């Protein structure tokens, strides 16, 4: 292979790869994915107690539930700028349907607030109470992932 051919190939590869790299560091996408990770971390605390993987600890359960409630109440308007859906950029599983007419994401977001309020109200009151209140939280998570996230 000649040197010129290698140079051309390298230049072409760079031209393709660079925009993709630039897209991967979209701050809004990073922030919303970080938000989801914070939710998952705190869900893990109560979820593992509910599954019996860890002992029920009312103080830790309450702390995790309070975090979930607070996270669900954050105004997410800056997380979701137009043009950051899975059809427009790499590195996101957010479906265009989030931004389309008839999108239910705000309603589901309100469901999550109500569900985490319910969890935070009882998380320290015993394992059964906490477990019962966790179901609606999972339901709200799933409701959004059902229609608005690319499956993998």
């Amino acid at each position, binding site marked *: 292979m000649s040197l010129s051919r290698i140079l051309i190939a390298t230049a072409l590869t760079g031209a393709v790869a660079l925009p993709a790299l630039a897209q991967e560091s979209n701050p809004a996408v990073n922030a919303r994915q970080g938000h989801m990770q914070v939710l998952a971390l705190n869900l893990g605390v109560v979820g593992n107690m509910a599954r019996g993987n860890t002992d029920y600890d009312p103080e830790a359960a309450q702390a995790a539930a309070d975090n979930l409630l607070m996270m669900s109440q954050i105004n997410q308007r800056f997380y979701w700028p137009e043009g950051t859906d899975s059809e427009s950029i790499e590195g996101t599983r957010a479906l265009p349907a989030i931004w389309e007419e008839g999108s239910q994401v705000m309603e589901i977001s309100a469901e999550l607030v109500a569900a985490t309020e319910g969890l935070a109200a009882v998380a320290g009151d015993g394992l059964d109470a906490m477990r019962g209140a966790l179901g609606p939280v999972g339901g709200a*998570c799933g409701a959004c992932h059902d229609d608005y996230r690319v499956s*993998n």
Partner: protein
Amino acid sequence: MKRALIVFGLVVIVGLGGGLWLTQPDIYFEDDLAGLTGDAEAGEAVFWAAGCASCHAAEDAEGEARLLLTGGQAFPSDFGTFRAPNISQDPIHGIGTWTQVEFFNAVQNGISPDGSHYYPAFPYTAYHLAERQDIADLYAFFQTLPASDVPSEPHDVGFPYSIRLAMRGWNFLNMPDGYTVSGDLTEEEERGRYLAEALAHCGECHTPRDGLGGLDRSRWLAGAPNPSGRGTIPDLRPDALGWSQGEIAAYLNDGFTPDFDAAGGHMTSVIGNMAELTEADRNAIAAYLLALPNGS
């Protein structure tokens, strides 16, 4: 020349006749089911395991609404868009007048009471493997369900797939005569295999399909493109999934992955069904998945 035409004609007739004879579908007759009586309470467990509501209840139905099998959900595929029909107890728009044997032929053989073929978007190829008692119980449970008078919507399927008789050849090629996973299985793994392969029809989404839409059983549960056109359906083989039995069983109950990400897509509805099963059955499905061959 005339003679050649006659010979050609005979070959065509024999060929078609032979083809139709060869591909004769399995059909139940009344006598086949003599003495079989369903138990509605047992049928409810079959109903959830078989996932009827995930497709036949209204989109996003929750709670009691999952028992109203009004139809209407759309299922895109390479062959067109299929729409789940109303299978509620309504005598006109649903299946309220069906006899037990009609129900059996629909569910296990893909044949409607008027003798026409259903499309395999309806997973009768999986239900074909189910125990007769379970289908009888399911029929009994269906009798207890409410009626919906919403008319079924037509499928949006173009020629040549619009020829239902072609399903006869498709069934001949694709109707399983036994389980896909064979070999030495524990009792728990066998129970899981029954639930996963015969009732819950996991393979319909998690197994890739060939050019004619048949399941590629050599890559059983190895993951597949999402028929909606976006994303993929995960590979469930143990090396790919990497979850423990307890993690799989818990996911099927509460919908959280081991990292506490929440399930999405059609799986949220499947988990709604799986959560209605016993813990032993969820553990059995998990044991079966861990017994899957990893493949190459």
